[in-house]
């Protein structure tokens, strides 16, 4: 029976190692099967340098018609699962057709790779970067090996960052004025603000601030929007009276946020909203939603800005 099993076993072991693996930051990446894996983190215009090792099973040789490594940036719509749209595709040929008898390393290099989009895994869409090693064979089929990696791109602090200030209400019922100190927050930022009660004729029970993510995929009539609440943060307990002002201080760091993505490759968008929700004693909800922009700030400066 052994030979049958052997027939289905890969004829060789293929692995990808990055040149700066030891120095490069590793981040967790959630894979399709639900498990997380630590993978290296890159930024746009990084040099992706490494080695592909092909190690045949001892005693066997690998006969091939060429070996190549591709760097792919792919978007996958879950409505069209398995179908990847490559927005980036780079290829390096590693070997000419031949035979490999023992372990062989093939260095490769992609210099200053343009990777404008960040790795993202949402409800209906996924954006991933991957190195694809292909050992082309006639029969019994090519050997393909994937190596994921994550791309995150820092943004500079926006030069204009106005506060969000607004007065809303229901006539003769409830008038509030709320203020968030900024309209653009980085991922580890703190939302500071306050809610001022101008008129209260409703018996409030509590007030929450929610962070909602709106992921829209497709375009035109086939646009599909999915909203999820990532944070529910209680701001107030009990019924305020006129003139009360309730402070807001919400740290973003505990939540799994991504930067705002506007129209990524015409395929999808991810937007964030602050939703202020007031709940009265009859559990009626009154809310006001405001979009905020989230961006990724370089790590060092993030530290500096935290309280």
């Amino acid at each position, binding site marked *: 029976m052994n030979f049958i099993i052997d027939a289905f076993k890969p004829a060789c072991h293929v692995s990808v190692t990055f040149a700066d693996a030891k120095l490069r930051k590793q981040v967790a990446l959630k894979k399709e099967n639900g498990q997380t894996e630590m993978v290296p983190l890159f930024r746009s215009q990084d040099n992706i340098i490494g080695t592909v090792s092909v190690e045949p099973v001892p005693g066997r040789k690998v006969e091939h018609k060429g070996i190549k490594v591709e760097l792919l940036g792919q978007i996958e719509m879950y409505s069209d699962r398995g179908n990847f749209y490559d927005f980036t595709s780079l290829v390096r040929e590693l070997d000419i057709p031949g035979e490999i008898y023992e372990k062989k390393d093939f260095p490769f290099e992609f210099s200053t790779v343009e990777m404008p989009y960040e790795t993202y895994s949402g409800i209906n869409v996924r954006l991933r970067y991957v190195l694809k090693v292909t050992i082309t064979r006639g029969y019994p089929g090519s050997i393909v090996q994937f190596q994921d990696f994550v791309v995150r791109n820092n943004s500079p602090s926006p030069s204009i960052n106005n506060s969000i200030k607004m007065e809303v209400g229901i006539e003769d019922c409830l008038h509030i004025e709320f203020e968030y100190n900024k309209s653009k927050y980085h991922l580890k930022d703190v939302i500071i603000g306050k809610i001022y009660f101008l008129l209260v004729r409703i018996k*409030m029970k*509590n007030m929450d601030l929610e962070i909602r993510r709106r992921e829209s995929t497709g375009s035109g009539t086939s646009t599909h929007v999915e909203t999820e609440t990532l*944070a*529910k*943060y*209680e*701001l*107030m*307990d*009990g*019924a*305020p*009276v006129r003139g*009360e*002002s*309730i*402070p807001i*201080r919400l*740290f973003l*760091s*505990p939540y799994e946020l991504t930067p705002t993505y506007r129209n990524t490759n015409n395929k999808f968008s991810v937007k964030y909203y602050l939703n202020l929700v007031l709940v009265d004693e009859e559990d009626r909800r009154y809310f006001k939603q405001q979009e905020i922009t989230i961006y990724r700030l370089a790590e060092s400066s993030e530290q500096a800005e*935290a*309280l």
Partner: protein
Amino acid sequence: MVADGVEDEEKWLSAGMAGLQQNAFYMHRALDSNNLKDALKYSTQMLSELRTSKLSPHKYYVLYMKAFDELRKLEIFFKDTISLGFSIVELYELVQHAGNILPRLYLLCTVGSVYVKTKEAPAKDILKDLVEMCRGIQHPLRGLFLRSYLSQVSRDKLPDIGSEYEGDADTVMDAVEFVLQNFTEMNKLWVRMQHQGPVNEKGKREKERNELRDLIGKNLHVLSQIEGVDLDMYKEVVLPRVLEQVVNCKDDLAQYYLMDCIIQVFPDEYHLQSLETLLSVCPQLQPSVDVKTVLSRLMDRLSSYAASGVEVLPEFFQVEAFMKLNNAIHKVIEAQADMPMVGVITLYASLLTFCLQVHPDRLDYVDQILGSCVKELSGREGLDDSKAARQIIALLSAPLEKYKDIDTALKLSNYRCIMEYLNDSMRKEMANIIIQNIMNNKKTISTADKVDGLFELIKGLIKDSDVETPDELEDEFKEEQNSVARLIQMLHSDNHEEMLNIINTVRNHVLMGGAKRLPYTIPPLIFSSLKLARRLEGHDQSVTGEDVSVTPKKIFQIVTQTIDALASIPVPGLALGLYLQCAEAADDCDLEPVAYEFFTQAYILYEEEITDSRAQVTSIHLIIGTLQRMHAFGVENRDALTHKATGYSAKLLKKPDQCRAVYACSHLFWIDDHDNVRDGERVLFCLKRALRIANSVQQMANATRGSSGTASVVLFVEILNKYIYFYEKGVPQITVESIQDLIELIRNELRGDNAKSDAVTDAFFSGTLRYIQFQKDKGGAISDKYKLIAL
């Protein structure tokens, strides 16, 4: 329903406790294993139990205390974590990740407390952040407890002067600001509690709020403990801010409690120096606030401050405390038109106490206060509120107690006016108090005017009121009248004329008293008059022309008229006694006719009015006794009177009484220091007659009872004593033989078969014999005389 509610609450409480303890258990495990993440997780869950709305404040407190204890452990853990190198800033952020606000804020306060201790940031910034963040809890009960927790953990960390958390500049201000803000917010929540929930549970809410009040008051206490709050800061910042909150909250419960709190927690001199500010608030309070108690407390405090030493008094003068208080009271009374009378009076009573303490020399102030009271009282319909009456009594008693002198009260023109508003029994009570006061202070009252004033004050005791109260308690009445009697004794002037005036004044008042009172009030008046008469006699020589208006005769006239007043009441015994007293006094003044007249009056009374045999016995002995002491009578008058007296004696009903009266009469005929009265014959006659009567007593006893009682033997022994007395005095008619015969007779009687031995009689007799023996042995002239008697 109610029972169910309570039961349910118990259930909820125990469920809450169970949840809290379970999470506390996991928290402890996390603490032990140094697991910060779990510690935060379980402490958050533990604190979530405090989010309940189902518990009454009382039960919630139980839960809170448990959580409080657990948080102490957590705080220690935080401290340890920090000392191991964990960043406090990070921790401060970390606890804020909690989604639910209440646990989040409890944790924040706890970490904040550690944060202040590390001194990595100025205390004032951290505290300010905490007190701001706590705004998120708008639920009154939960908010109150949270802020109370904040106050609790922060009180030893205020950036006070001298505190280790003191900052660079104006740091006390930060501490004050922090406490004030927390106080303001707590008070708002507390007041809001009143307005939430169903209307029909208003009373219950009020009760619950009352249970919570100390949480709010504690803030004021903290303020008073801050070293840096000096007088200036108190006046400029603390007080105005607190008062602003008090006025603006417009809640009667809070206003009353907080005012009281302010008065109690801050030092006296602060109150004194900020009096105007404090007082100006009073009229602005809600009408239902018990301002009077507030003001009374304030005045009481200031009073006791003033009493603490004279050195503080100038402070009072400097700020014109009295005028300010007086004005404030006026304003409050004006502002609260429907304040009950008792409130008004209480206010004035407190002001009066204050005034007496601070301005003991300003009687005009006192009178002014009383005047204000009169004005208030006059504006109202009747005074049937017994509490108010009580207060009036307290009000009126205060000056008496202070000055210990009725004179002062008499000088207050409004004093009397106020008493007018009391009802009868209260007026009596007040009169009693006044008399008691005079008695205790032992000050005599020495002018007729004052006496007049005084009697006006106590007329409740002197006169029957228009409305008769038939059920008056006899004992009480007696007690009252006795004190009036005592009072009369306190009226005294060294000036004779004035004294006469006093007597006249008293007489005028007393005579209005009616039949029931006269027997009590006339005797002291008479005695007082007689005292004056005797004094006049004693000073006869020194009396100069100007004093002639006052003569004993005049006094006796008055006295006679006074006693006459008793005639209308059937108290002849008393009148007789008084006449005899007068006679004696007249005798002292050598006014024979007057004395005779008094005796005549007494005899008339005896004959016409005294019909009771017992009373007769007493009266006759009185008459004999008095008559015996008379010096002024000439032979004729004397004879007439003694004759009558002997006659009366012999006519008494009971034989033993006759016997005793008769032998007593013997004294009328032999007076040692009176040369004219030495009639041995009559003495002997009297004694013999007494013996005869005694004999007949004995016979009667034999006849009626078949045995001679010892009663007659006693009589014999008594007569024997008279014999011995007169023998010793040297009455020639009393012979040794007669004495010996008598002794023999008594011995026989005592030995007699049918005589029952009676210890008292035996003792009396043997005592008599012993006396004789003693005199014999004494030696000297008397002894010689006695030696003649053979025993």
